């Protein structure tokens, strides 16, 4: 006797009649993850990512100094170091070696200068020279790595007990890691926007243009550009001169994004970042620059109000 195993309907017809059962509870857990992110982020008024298409342009330095500038304005600020493999925000803020405190409410972020709350992969590492290494064989299949990093970012958004914040600044890794901006946009649909860091170099601005267009493609509004290493600030006479040749104004105009400010190369700032001794006061001209950029960001985020007031 033979039994016919041929289905009487095609798969599309069969599926149209069935209701998907989440009996393995995978979808439920993914929904729970999303809700947890929403719950945490709901207590943060403004969320901004700092990004660039290029590495080495000073994203982390910009993030740290913007955080300080906002904190000087009296805001409660958090910094999320999304550069999982090259976290350096803690070092710049003098917070190397600090750890999360795991509580039933989540991971309490270490608090740094001016009350800035910081979350970074660095807080999980054995020491400041230890690389981020994941369990799992890269030889068998490293395909899982992107998904793992996305879920680690999701945990950074969902599991940190930030409390009430006026602003969360997220320092993204270089643009080559093209999955991070869409991951952030996906997790944070209410993201206020991206601050894009560039330098006066045609090579950099070419790549930065791509990242601005890419950010828009994935639904991240671009708040504006910051040109870093924009000239050299002489520590002796205070004179500022060009270090490289660039034209960020025309790039900003072409892309129709505001130029938020230009930050000159400043030896003292560089040394302070390396040494974990951030500039806390606005006394230095370079710190004042970041105060001005912070003001412009506030203006850009509140542009409707400004238009209403001034038009």
């Amino acid at each position, binding site marked *: 006797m033979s039994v016919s195993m041929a*289905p009487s309907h095609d798969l599309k017809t069969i599926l149209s009649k069935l209701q998907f059962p989440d009996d*393995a509870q995978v979808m*439920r857990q993914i929904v729970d993850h999303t809700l947890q992110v929403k719950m945490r982020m709901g207590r943060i008024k403004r969320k901004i990512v700092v990004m660039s298409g290029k590495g080495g342009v000073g994203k982390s330095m910009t993030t740290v100094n913007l955080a300080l500038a906002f904190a000087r304005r009296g805001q409660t600020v958090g910094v999320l170091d999304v550069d999982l493999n090259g976290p350096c925000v803690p070092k710049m803020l003098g917070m190397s070696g600090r750890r999360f405190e795991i509580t039933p409410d989540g991971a309490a972020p270490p608090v740094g200068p001016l009350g800035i709350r910081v979350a970074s992969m660095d807080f999980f590492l054995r020491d400041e020279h230890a690389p981020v290494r994941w*369990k799992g*064989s890269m030889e068998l299949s490293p*395909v*899982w790595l992107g998904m*793992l990093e996305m879920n*680690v970012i999701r945990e*950074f958004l969902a599991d940190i007990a930030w409390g009430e914040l006026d602003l969360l600044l997220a320092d993204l890794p270089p643009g080559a890691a093209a999955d991070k901006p869409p991951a952030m946009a996906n997790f944070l649909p209410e993201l206020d926007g991206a601050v894009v860091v560039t330098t006066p170099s045609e090579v950099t601005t070419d790549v930065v243009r791509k990242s601005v267009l890419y950010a828009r493609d994935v639904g991240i509004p671009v708040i504006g550009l910051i040109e870093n290493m924009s000239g050299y600030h002489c520590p002796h006479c205070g004179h500022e001169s060009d270090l490289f040749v660039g034209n960020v104004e025309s790039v900003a105009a072409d892309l129709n994004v505001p130029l938020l400010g230009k930050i000159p190369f400043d030896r003292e700032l560089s040394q302070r970042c390396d040494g974990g001794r951030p500039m806390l006061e606005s006394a230095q001209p370079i710190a004042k620059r970041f105060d001005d950029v912070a003001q412009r960001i506030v203006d850009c985020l509140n542009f409707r109000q400004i238009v209403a007031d001034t038009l």
Partner: protein
Amino acid sequence: MKFVCLNCEAFMLFQKVEQPGEGTLGVEFLCPTCKARFSMVTNPGETQMVQALGVKIGGRTTAPEAFELTRDTLKDGAECPVPAFSASAARAADTPSTGDAAGGSCPFSSVVASMGSGASATGSENGPTSLEWSAEALDRLAKIPDFVRPTVRAEVEAYARKSGESFVTQAMIDQYKGTTAELAWTSEATKRLENIPFFIRPMAKKEIERMAREQGRAEVTADMMDHAKTAFAKFMGG
């Protein structure tokens, strides 16, 4: 992912998840109508992918804790002085984890080891310390251009560790040298290699050559391909 019983036109229902071997998951489904049972078995790469999702198939049995995926997956997590965390013990009763059953840092280390792969066999996972070298071995090392010397030294030491040696001699360098020589492939072996889907061919070639070197072969032959096939089938439980 769901399975559909085409005969009964019904979704098969999740029954249980188990760990039939290190680095693999077996997810069992049952057709509610004809009661047919199927088990989907994952290979190590797929298991890793499932783990990366950060979900427990079949649902959670313990309350979630902050950063559980990050902390469980960081290779150096055990050394990270994060405040006391008891999730590991609690998780033992949870959905079977593919990690660290053997105490190694790679969840598939025992699988890979059982295949004889060198993937995790290159010495201590936590930064190997230098081995001792004989004077003759050091002399030979000194003849290598200085810009590649650190790489060669690390590779020879990794090979020595894999061989269970803690002292590098001239003979050890010769053996290591043998592993770096390019292997010849017979046309028949090459033809059989081409039967493997292109996207996994480089991985398979590397693994077959490693097995051949372990057997002291200078050439990959059809016979070697048979041996590799048996080893792969054994690994997959075939």
